[in-house]
C-alpha cells in the first residue's frame, strides 16, 4: 500500500483516463458476459453496461457505470454520467435478477448523474429515488464496488447494497471537491483542500463505516497491471457469495436495511 498519497492525489488517480473501466473488470472477473440493453420506457443509456455473467458457474447480474478511454468513447459513454434511462435499465435488470435469484454486482464509476434539460424532463430525481427504494427490498445479495469515482446521488443509486467495497484509490463523495470549494470559498482552485475536508477516500469512509472493505491497488493501476488486483477481487467475490449463500432472503433484506438505518 502506498499511503503517502494526499486525498487530492487520490481524486486525480480515481479519475485518471488510464484507469481500468467497468467493462475491463467485467471481462477479467467473469467467465462470460452477455450484455442486455434498454430501460423499456425510453432508450438505452451507454453510460451503463449491464447483463448476465458467469462466475464459477454461478449466474450473476452485473451492472457497471461506464466511462470511456478517449474523447470518442467518452462522447458515447457520456463520461460515465447516466441519464434517467440508465438508472431505469439498472433497476429493470436488478428486478430481473431478483426474479431469477441471481446475486447482483454493481460497479460504481461516475462523476455524477447527468445534469441537463432532458434528464430533468425524464425525471432524473425520480429515477434515482426509485432505485434507492426498490434496491432496499431486493431479496438477493447485492455487492457494490467503487472502482473509480463515486459521485454523489448518481453513485448512490448503484450503492444500496449489502456490502460496499472501494478500491484503494477510488473516491466516494457527496459533492465534487471542485464544487465544494467553489461554494465554500468561491474558489474552485481550492479543490485539493476540499478533498481533504470531505473525507472521500476509501480509508476515511471505512473509518466512518460507510464502506465495508478496501481492496489494495498496485502502484500504478492500468489495464496491464491489474491482474493481481483481479485475483484479489475474484477471491473476495467468492467469499462474498459464500457468506450470503447460507443466509435467508429475509435476513438479506433485513441486514441491508440495518446497514443504512445505522448511518
Amino acid at each position: 500500500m502506498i499511503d503517502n498519497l494526499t486525498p487530492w492525489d487520490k481524486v486525480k488517480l480515481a479519475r485518471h483516463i488510464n484507469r481500468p473501466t467497468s467493462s475491463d473488470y467485467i471481462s477479467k472477473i467473469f467467465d462470460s458476459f452477455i450484455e442486455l440493453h434498454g430501460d423499456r420506457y425510453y432508450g438505452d443509456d451507454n453510460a451503463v453496461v449491464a447483463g448476465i455473467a458467469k462466475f464459477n458457474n454461478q449466474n450473476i447480474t452485473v451492472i457497471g457505470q461506464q466511462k470511456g478511454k478517449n474523447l470518442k468513447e467518452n462522447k458515447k459513454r457520456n463520461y460515465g454520467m447516466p441519464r434517467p434511462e440508465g438508472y431505469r435499465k439498472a433497476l429493470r435488470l436488478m428486478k430481473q435478477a431478483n426474479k431469477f435469484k441471481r446475486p447482483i454486482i454493481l460497479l460504481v464509476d461516475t462523476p455524477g448523474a447527468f445534469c441537463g434539460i432532458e434528464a430533468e424532463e425524464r425525471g432524473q430525481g425520480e429515477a434515482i429515488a426509485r432505485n434507492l427504494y426498490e434496491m432496499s427490498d431486493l431479496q438477493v445479495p447485492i455487492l457494490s464496488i467503487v472502482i473509480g469515482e463515486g459521485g454523489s446521488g448518481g453513485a448512490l443509486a448503484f450503492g444500496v447494497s449489502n456490502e460496499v467495497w472501494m478500491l484503494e484509490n477510488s473516491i466516494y463523495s457527496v459533492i465534487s471537491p471542485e464544487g465544494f470549494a467553489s461554494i465554500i470559498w468561491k474558489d474552485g482552485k481550492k479543490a485539493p483542500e476540499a478533498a481533504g475536508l470531505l473525507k472521500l477516500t476509501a480509508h476515511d469512509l471505512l473509518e466512518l463505516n460507510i464502506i465495508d472493505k478496501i481492496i489494495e491497488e498496485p502502484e500504478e493501476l492500468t489495464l496491464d497491471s491489474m491482474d493481481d488486483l483481479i485475483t484479489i477481487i475474484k477471491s473476495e467475490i467468492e467469499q462474498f457469495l459464500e457468506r450470503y449463500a447460507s443466509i435467508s432472503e429475509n435476513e438479506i433484506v433485513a441486514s441491508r436495511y440495518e446497514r443504512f438505518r445505522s448511518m
Partner: protein
Amino acid sequence: MNGDNFMLKDLFKKSSSTPSKIIKESQIPDGLFQKCLKCNDILYSEDLVENYYVCPNCNNHIRVNPRERLSMVLDEGSFMELNREIDIADPIGFPGYKEKVRHIKSVTNLNEAVITGRGKINGTDVAIGVMASNFLMGSMGKVVGEKITGLIEYATDCRLPLIIFSCSGGARMQEGMVSLMQMAKTSAALKRHDKEGLLYISVLTDPTTGGVMASFAMLGDIIIAEPGALIGFAGPRVIEQTIGQKLPEGFQRSEFLLEHGFIDKIVKRNQMKKILSILIKS
C-alpha cells in the same frame, strides 16, 4: 457537473432561502405592511396571514415556517411532536459546523430543518413531517434523515398515513458522505411503510431539489405540489452552466412536472387541508 452541487451552493446563500427575500417588511413601523417581492405589491400583514401567506395579487406562495404550515393543515391543538431533540451530528468534524448549527438553532427557534410528529386532519390521525427552508436551506444531514426515518417507522408501527412537506436544497455537504446516506435510509424506510399497505402523500413546496428530491420527496403514492414551486434534481444554475444556455421559462416548476407526468396534482395552499383530508380517507 453533477446535480447535487446546486443545492449545496444555495445552502450558503444566506438570503435566498428565507422568506425575507420574497417578502420583506417595509419601512412602515410595526411591520403592519409587507411587500411581495414577486409583484412588488404592498400587502397588509394581517390579510397575508389570513390568506395563508399567498399574495392575493399574484398568487405567489410565500415560503412559510414549519409551525405555521402545521397550523394550516392540522386540527387545532392536535399536534404532538416526535424526536424533538436529537444531538447535532458532525460526522466529518467539519470546521465551524457545530457552531453554525447552534447559531441557526438560536436565530430560527427551530431544532433542525424538519419538524416531525403526529396530528389530526379533520379528525383523522396522520404522521406528518414539515421541512424548514430557513434552516441551512432545508438541507438533509444525519439529524434530518434520522427524524424523517423515525417518523416513517412510527407511521409504519402505528399504521398511520404519512404526509411529508418537503422543501430542501438537498444533502448537507458539511456532513460529507453521511448526509448522502440519509437518502438511502429514508427511502428504505418508505419501502417498509409501503409494504404494509399504508398511504404516503408527498407534498413538494418551493424549493425541493437535490438529494431530497432524489429520495423521499419523489416516492409518494400521491405527489402534490404547491403552485410555482421549484422542483428538480439539478439546480437551474448548474444546468445553465453545464449546457451553456438559458433555460426555458417555467422549467422545473410545479406546472412543468405536472405536464411531464411526475406529480399527481397542484394544490393551492388554501385548499391543501381539504384535499389532504379527502385523500387520507380515500
